């Protein structure tokens, strides 16, 4: 742990340096412009201080984003309004619930498709090209249609967003699980045959356990994709809640600080979710004696 701490801190420090530097470079023009209009002649330090504290900067400085995040999370919790519509916790929860449902649907659908592809020759020959084709269509083009179509048949709210999450997250699971379920070698399959095992026994005792490392690798990718799907699902629909809605509202009103705080929140959420899968992976593989 201590060994990894120093490299991590170094990278974080480097990111902050670059970030603050970029904030100076990007926001300087506005700072100078302001000074000219006001007829003042600020020193360089004053200019730099200005670039780090503008209300609508091109690139907000880290501390501005941090302050915004604190204002919309911790501070609101302290004031007992942790779940108000202005709180990032509320918006994160909205996105998280769509992400979670979409992820579960996507993972389940992906695993089922993979089983079909591995065990059914017709599916093996026909399904994969469609699966790949489905991912070549930009999600931004599909998302509004999914939402409109589902709305027309009376489904709205959480489920359409979850469907978009699912659309993005089933793909890595299919690819990973097909590979994983096929990972037992010819010898292991022959061995099962010598015991004259049924297909079910072959699946539960050999193919499925063999696929576990592949499953977890693809679940991590699927989880990240799922979050992206949920956010994208919130963008084109004029959604009023969720991290995507926050991003959209922020961009309407030029609230860059709000955009960045929603972005950071989304990144943190993704990191936590992926780490969670990593933890489950460690526990499962450890119990299986594979780690």
């Amino acid at each position: 742990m201590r060994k990894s701490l120093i490299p991590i801190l170094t990278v974080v420090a480097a990111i902050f340096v670059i970030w603050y530097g970029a904030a100076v470079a990007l926001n300087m023009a506005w700072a100078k412009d302001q000074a000219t209009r006001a007829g003042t002649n600020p020193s360089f330090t004053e200019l730099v201080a200005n670039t780090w504290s503008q209300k609508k900067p091109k690139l907000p400085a880290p501390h501005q984003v941090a302050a915004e995040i604190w204002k919309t999370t911790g501070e609101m919790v302290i004031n007992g309004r942790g779940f108000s519509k202005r709180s990032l916790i509320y918006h994160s929860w909205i996105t998280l619930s769509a992400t979670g449902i979409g992820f579960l649907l996507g993972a389940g659908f992906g695993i089922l498709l993979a089983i079909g592809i591995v065990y059914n020759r017709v599916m093996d020959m026909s399904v994969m090209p469609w699966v790949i084709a489905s991912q070549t269509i930009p999600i931004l083009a599909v998302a509004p249609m999914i939402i409109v179509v589902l709305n027309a048949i009376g489904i709205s709210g959480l489920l359409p967003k979850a469907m978009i999450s699912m659309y993005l997250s089933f793909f890595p699971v299919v690819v990973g699980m097909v590979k994983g379920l096929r990972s037992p070698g010819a010898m292991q399959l022959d061995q099962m045959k010598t015991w004259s095992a049924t297909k079910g026994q072959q699946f539960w005792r050999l193919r499925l356990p063999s696929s576990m490392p592949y499953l977890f690798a693809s679940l991590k990718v699927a989880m990240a994709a799922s979050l992206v799907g949920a956010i994208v699902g919130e963008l084109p629909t004029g959604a009023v809640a969720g991290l995507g809605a926050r991003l959209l509202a922020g961009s309407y009103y030029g609230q860059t600080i709000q955009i960045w705080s929603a972005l950071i929140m989304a990144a943190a959420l993704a990191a936590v979710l992926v780490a969670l899968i990593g933890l489950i992976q460690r526990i499962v593989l450890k119990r299986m004696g594979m780690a």
Partner: protein
Amino acid sequence: MTDTVISAKDLSLTFQTNDGPVHALKDVSLDIQKGDFISFIGPSGCGKTTFLRCMADLEHPTGGSISVNGVSAQEARKSRAYGYVFQHAGLYPWRTIGGNIRLPLEIMGYDKADQDERVNRVLELVELDGFEKKFPWQLSGGMQQRASIARALAFDADILLMDEPFGALDEIVRDHLNEQLLKLWDRTNKTIGFVTHSIPEAVYLSTKIVVMSPRPGRISDVIESTLPKERPLDIRDTPEFLEIAHRVRDGLRAGHAYDD
């Protein structure tokens, strides 16, 4: 009068490849009696493994017939007539040694108490008692292969088919396992089919040595061993042993086309 356990008659197997047909086996006939220890020896491509796999119904002959325990190879496989040991132990890394041995028993539907009893018995048989709870990676290669033999012995099959089971192990471990295998064969009274590359191994273990030659794969000689059933390792230095080894070598040389 002994019973014939495995009987092959004019067995042929031709693989169709892009380079034309490959005759893995051609007109192979052989009878294996109950309690025999038969070794199959020959250079690569002589069809010895293919022959063993035909007995196990893992390959399907394109000509001739083969019967195992008086029925077709497929029926014999379905009635779980044999245990098969592959070149690599092939233990499941997510199961303990005990769990691996239990695997075929679970598949065959033995009840729990019976499974425990059998696992203990075969672990003892291959001298791995106390390793039941260990995972495969905690064992050496030789111990893993012993565990895989135990797995093949755990259920009631009178035939044990072994495809170069000690091929990947070093000489010293191999000697030890050979010695153990003979004891095991003596105690369990199984019929064993054993594929090997090694002349000393074949001579040391077998009651009958089947010498095979390639292109097309066929039997070039069948040598009955005159060695006693009790075989200490140093029997390999006796003139009798060397005489048989010499015959095997001659058989291999005769069958092998060295002119190409």
